[in-house]
């Protein structure tokens, strides 16, 4: 063993190379991954909360729930697939498409539907000058939440931070 005074090698460079990052992407257990994805769909931002990304969770909740609420205030309509015997698939395709986009916002859609918000008939809702704006914001909320669900899945799978 070398005496301390005889050491000539610069040890600082070795220690600099051994930095440990505490924020590296890591794969979460299957149960937590599944919980994160389901929570992310049900409540915007809840998936990130499950994964410990609290700041992003709050940001997503405010933005997406805010967009949905703004859509309701602007007289948007909650769409549900309407049967259409003339269509080859048996449903009016545009209502299927819009339902798919809006239901992405999870409980925002389900609770509003159960409370009867945004369920006025389309001619009645369309009488409001802000009807189209409202629909656009609710569609935006659903589509953005799909992205957030994918993001939560990527984080849980260890593909990103």
């Amino acid at each position: 063993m070398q005496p301390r005074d005889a050491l000539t090698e610069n040890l600082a460079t070795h220690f600099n190379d051994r930095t440990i990052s505490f924020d590296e992407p890591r794969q979460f257990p299957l149960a937590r991954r599944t919980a994160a994805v389901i929570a992310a769909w049900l409540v915007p931002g809840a998936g990130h909360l499950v994964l410990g990304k609290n700041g992003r969770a709050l940001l997503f909740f405010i933005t997406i729930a805010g967009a949905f609420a703004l859509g309701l205030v602007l007289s948007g309509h909650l769409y549900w697939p309407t049967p259409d015997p003339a269509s080859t698939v048996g449903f009016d395709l545009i209502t299927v498409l819009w339902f798919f986009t809006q239901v992405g916002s999870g409980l925002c859609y389900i609770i509003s539907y159960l409370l009867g918000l945004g369920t006025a008939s389309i001619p009645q809702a369309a009488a409001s000058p802000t009807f189209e704006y409202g629909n656009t914001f609710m569609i935006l909320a659903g589509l953005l939440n799909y992205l957030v669900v994918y993001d939560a899945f990527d984080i849980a799978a260890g593909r990103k931070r």
Partner: protein
Amino acid sequence: MHVLMMSVYAAMAAVVLAAVDPKSNTTRQRFLHGLKIFGSFLGIGLLLSWILFPIPW
């Protein structure tokens, strides 16, 4: 009214798109990316409206 709604829409979309961007690693990078998205939404929206304005239908 329309420009206000477009700006709110752009802001909400920009916030989420910037936050999920896999290439941005720091808050500053996400913020700048969000600003770019917001500006792009507004710029392209105004450009399209300017191009489409003379069309009567």
